[in-house]
Structure formats: structure tokens, C-alpha cells
């Protein structure tokens, strides 16, 4: 597993995303409620680009007529046929064991730390005062 610096934290606004190419893989990094999630940018159904997905809430109904919203912004709804996935795990809502998007570990680290470690990206100038999103593949 290698760690890749993919963005400054300020580069991806809340609710937004950034697509990066890591080792030939199309990865999309989402920023939701202060957290970052990295997923393969292709829906496992027919391959839609997930960068265009809607970030939605989980809507459940414990009984007819009662509706509950939770985890606002943490669910991805595919831009084509609307399959829903949990951003944290990539698991689909309807068949979590069989249908999932590949997800990757994400960390946020300070430039200061990165400059000390072995991970300084050659292509990405790292500044001590910024924080960076790191995706592990």
C-alpha cells in the first residue's frame, strides 16, 4: 500500500469532490461534514461516474407514515440508476455484502508531518502550514 497526497484540504469544499488518477485508477475523493472519503469513480452497476453522484441522507421508515433522515450527506446516490452506497464503506444499501464500490483509506495530515516523513509527493508541493488529504492504495 502506498500513500498518495491528493489534495489540500481546502481544495475540496464541503459537499464537493475531486477526481484523481492514482496508478491508473480513477478515484473520487468526497468531502462530507469535515470528513474525506475516497472511492473508485465507477458505479459497480453499469459504470457511471460517481463524481456526479448526489450526496444524500439515509431515509428510513420504521413504520408506515413515519420517516427518519439520518447521516445527512453521507450516502451516495448513483447519477444514473440511483443505487445508493454508504460513503464510509462503499457498501450498497440494498445488498451490502455483494455490491459495493471499492473504497480506500483516507487520512488528513499536516504538511509539517508530511515533510518529515517519507511521503512527500514529488508532483505536489507541500507547505508546512497546510493540511493534506492522503489516500492509501
Amino acid at each position: 500500500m502506498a500513500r498518495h497526497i491528493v489534495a489540500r484540504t481546502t481544495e475540496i469544499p464541503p459537499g464537493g469532490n475531486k477526481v484523481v488518477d492514482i496508478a491508473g485508477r480513477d478515484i473520487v475523493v468526497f468531502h462530507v461534514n469535515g470528513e474525506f472519503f475516497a472511492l473508485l469513480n465507477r458505479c459497480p452497476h453499469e459504470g457511471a461516474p460517481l463524481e456526479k453522484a448526489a450526496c444524500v441522507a439515509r431515509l428510513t421508515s420504521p413504520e408506515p407514515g413515519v420517516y427518519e433522515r439520518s447521516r445527512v450527506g453521507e450516502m451516495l446516490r448513483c447519477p444514473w440508476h440511483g443505487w445508493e452506497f454508504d460513503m464510509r464503506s462503499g457498501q450498497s444499501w440494498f445488498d451490502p455484502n455483494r455490491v459495493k464500490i471499492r473504497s480506500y483509506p483516507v487520512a488528513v495530515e499536516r504538511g509539517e508531518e508530511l515533510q518529515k516523513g517519507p511521503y512527500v509527493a514529488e508532483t505536489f508541493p507541500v507547505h508546512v502550514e497546510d493540511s493534506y488529504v492522503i489516500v492509501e492504495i
Partner: protein
Amino acid sequence: MSEVIDRPLRDDEKPAASRLRIVDCDVHPSLRSTDDLNEFLPKRWQHHLKEYGSHLRTPYLFTTPYPRSSPLIARRDAWPPTGGPPGSDLAFMQKQHLDPLDVEFGILQVLDLFIFSQQNLEFGAAIQRAINDWQLAFWSHRDPRLKASILVGQDGTDLAIAEIERCARIGEYIQINVSPRANEPLGRRRYWPIYERAQELDLPLGIHVGGYGGHAPTGGGWPSYYVEEHQSNAHTIAAQLASLVIEGVPERFPKLKFVFIEGGFGWIPSAVWRMDQHFERFRSEVPHLKRKPSEYVRDQFWFTTQPIDEPDEARHLRSLIEWVGIDRLLFSSDYPHWDFDDPRFAFKTPLTEAERKKIFSTNARAVYKF
């Protein structure tokens, strides 16, 4: 069903390498604005459109009764960067759909302005005529891959025939489209003049699901939910298939080709088995039928593939395709709508190269004579 995708596209999945050369029988262009029709619409009807708009059996001008899961029922990635609704920008359609998927021919299916559901028949005929001209000027003439259909409202049969004659003289249209939700079942004799003319002109009859007729879309009444309404597309056209066959339209017009568009195909085997079974029993009720219903279906009807059925097991899709007949199926994507099918990934079942070729190209080429 799907598995985790954790790999880059293989070369043979990359559009340029696969050279699918597909015929896509269901591509939806949209008006950027109704002003685009002005050059084709007489002033009288331009004013009518502005002052009265559609007269439908649904509420609200220029809306469907509810947003139906995705704004304008479109893929979220299909909104052109230049503005305007999905399907309204040719350059973007070329870049997003026609070029990467290697579409050799795309058949336009226009749904704007509730074209088949207008109750004011003269207004309906005026916008059908304008849209027929617009399809050529804005689409086919700018990209020869895109083929136009003659849209007519069959409840104004005389108006429909006049429009068919006008377009046939232009000679660029590849089929005649009528509504699956007309005032009466499609097999009724009041519609036969259209079928007769279609046969004489050797133009297939396209029947695209949707629209709002005067009847509830299911035999049980109006659905509560979109997911429920979506099921009714299949019921509606299954009923129309039965009506056409049993009222004797293919018997009377043996050279006429019918193409059912966007109704999927999972419902076909049981509909046909049932018709045959009952025909054996009730032959004397319909002595005008000389052959089994399934024989008419096998000879004169084709079905576009989208929305494709997705059984849990791939082999079930495979048998379904065989039951319907590999030569009966015409690939369609429904671009840019939310239930779009990607030709590279939608058929989650093994098909031989020869079978793929039929479904994705040669069947349609034979029906439409490309």
C-alpha cells in the same frame, strides 16, 4: 448482479477498442427552449402555446406530475455545460454518448411538449409537425447518424395521415411513431388508416412508452408511486401488443413492422404464451386470426432492450433473451434519461459475438434498412 469493481477498464471495455458500432434505437433529444420551434410553428399556434399551452389530463404547464426520481428524468451527468436541459446540446451529446459508445445510428425519440398526449388535436398536430421539422433541422442534418421519426397523434387520424404524407415526401424519416396511450386500444379500426399507410410506405411503426392518455396506466387504476407507475409501462404495452395482434392488425397488414420502444422485454414470453393458449381455446371468437398470436409476434414485432431486466442469475437473463428471440431485440440506451443502459455493461449475461452483433446492430439495420 454486480460485484465489486476494483480495476481499471480492460482494453476491450474501452469504447475505442471495442468498436461496438451500435445502433441505438432510443435517444432523446430535447428542445433547448420552445422558441426553437418558432420557425416551424405558425404564429397562430405559437400564440396558442404561449397563452394556453398544453391541454392535458395532468396538472401544471410544462411539468410531469412529479419529478420522477431525477430532475427531468435525466442522468445527473447529462446536463450540458452550456446550459439547457439534458439532450438539448448536440455537441455534448456527441461527446458524451455518440462518439465514446461508437453509435453508428441513433434513432431520435422526442417526448417534449407531451407530444402524444395533447387533447386539442389541431394544436397537437401543429407541434408534431413542428417537431418533425425540428428533428431534421436541429439534429439529423447536423449529424447524419441521428435518424428522425414521423410523430403523429393517431386520434386525429386525418391529421396524422396528412403529416405522414408530408414527411414521406421529404423522404428522410425512418419510422412512424404513435402513442401507446391513445384514446382507444391500438388495435381498433379507427387507427387502421395509419397502419395501412405505414405498410404502403414500408415504414416501421414505433411505439414508445409514456405519455398521459385518458386512462389510468394500470387496469387497477392510478398508482401512488413512481416506482409503481414505472411497472405500468410494461402492462400498458403488453395490453397494446394483445390489442394489435388479437384485433388482427398484423393479419391485415402482414408487411407492417412494429417496434415497441422502452418497454423492456421481460414480460413478453408469458404474454405470448398466454395469448397462444387462449387462442387455442377461443379460436371461434376471433376467426379473423389465421395464425397463432406468437407467430405474428415472431414475424412482425421487435422490442428495444431498455430498461433491461436484471435477474439475480445471469443465466435467467440469457433464457429470457432466448425466449423472446435474439432476432427480436434492438439495443437502446434511452440516453440521457436516468435509466440509461450502457451497451458495454448492461447485458450481464454471456452472449456470443454473433448474438451481440444482432442485438446491437444488425437486427435494427434490417428493420430500419440502414
